[in-house]
């Protein structure tokens, strides 16, 4: 299909994020009223998607080649059992024990390092981030998908929006995690406190992550109080909490 040069320029500038306000207004209007123009935009989107895809495939091939090379140079074997390995392992344990003792002493004075050692983002256990054609569900799907892809900025913004209409414990936990990762410690604390206060579920998770927030912001006394509480229970976080409490002390 033939398209005018002006239309092609407009579409190129749209995808290159170079439109000014007037051009953007024109673009939006054309998209609503001109099927021919809309088809040009759709075609450009597919072409750019193909370029991005081929770029990703090329990077994947590069990593696969690198992996083959690494496997030849330094084979990674996860099986155990040989006698030789046993002696290596025994020697390693001695080395690790010495290193760990030095490391623990460092950690006792450094909440930031403790945070780094113990923080892992909570996985999305709440919703399948599958595609949906229902527009109502799309923002929700986008939010979980962004979280799974590590786009925590986008996830935090969408979760925050969604929580205004629908207060769900799982979403609040993931919003708190996103904020914690992004360094929005104050917001993360508020999320975990609200999760603990407003819901009957996920309260142990909320407390665990709240303790990490306090650790991150250097409020070790508050972190200790929560870790002690968790350590006194028999839940899955108890062992980790007791271990961390020992180091914060």
């Amino acid at each position, binding site marked *: 299909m033939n398209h005018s040069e002006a239309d092609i320029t407009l579409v190129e500038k749209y995808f290159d994020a170079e439109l000014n306000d007037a051009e953007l207004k024109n673009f939006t209007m054309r998209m609503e009223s001109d099927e021919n123009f809309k088809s040009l935009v759709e075609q450009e989107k597919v*072409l750019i998607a193909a370029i991005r895809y*081929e*770029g990703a495939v090329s990077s994947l091939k590069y990593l696969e080649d690198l992996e083959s090379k690494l496997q030849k140079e330094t084979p990674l074997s996860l099986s155990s059992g040989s006698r030789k390995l046993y002696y290596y392992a025994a020697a390693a344990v001695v080395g690790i024990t010495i290193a760990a003792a030095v490391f623990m002493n460092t950690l006792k004075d450094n909440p930031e390092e403790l945070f780094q050692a113990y923080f892992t983002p909570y996985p999305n256990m709440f919703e399948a981030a599958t595609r949906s054609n229902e527009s109502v569900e799309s923002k929700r799907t986008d939010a979980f998908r962004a979280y799974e892809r590590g786009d925590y900025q986008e996830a935090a913004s969408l979760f925050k929006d969604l929580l205004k209409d629908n207060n769900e414990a799982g979403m609040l936990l993931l919003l708190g995690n996103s904020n914690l990762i992004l360094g929005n410690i104050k917001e993360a604390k508020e999320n975990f406190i609200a999760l603990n206060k407003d819901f009957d579920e996920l309260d142990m998770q909320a407390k665990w992550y709240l303790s990490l927030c306090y650790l991150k912001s250097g409020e070790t006394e508050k972190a200790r109080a929560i870790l002690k509480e968790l350590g006194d229970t028999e839940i899955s976080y108890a062992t980790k909490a007791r271990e961390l409490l020992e180091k914060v002390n």
Partner: protein
Amino acid sequence: MNQDEIIQKIKSGGQTELGLVYEEYREEFLRWLVKEFNCSLDDGKDIYQLTILIFHDNIRLGKLEHLVSSVKTYLFGIGKNIVKENLRKEKRFIPISKEKWLKENLIDEPTNKIDDAVFERAKNALSKLGQPCQRLIELFYYEKKSIPEITLAMNYKNPETAKNQKCKCMARLRKLFDEETEQNTFAINHESL
């Protein structure tokens, strides 16, 4: 090198920088993944490669500029989510088709999946484009390099020349795509006769 420096290095670099990150966390990631999810080493490698590509994608698209956690934590978080998604779909761990996974997770929008046949035609058109056009538009649209960066990387006289060349390459790609579409339409009509 701190976390933000690693991000900056990947953003301004290319595949070599990505390879350095791959090597840095490879052993620890694979040991953790295989132990935690009881998957094979080969499956672990596939997941690690996809994890690194997501990390790269988020940096290139400006979705990840600062990390409050370590790169390792971030990578482990992504890896865990890929495995969980895989387990949720199949109830048991199954090998991932990486190229299909890339399209579904890095290219398709959640509510607007690109038709496979149309996408195939776009890929065919791209494969016929030739160099230096392929490299130029890949630098611009995939690696998200700026026109001045492309000018330097591809030895163009000045940014205007690079920009003009990019527009010409895209015009050529559109033409090739139209030809692919025409051939496809012709083949369909021919088959229905």
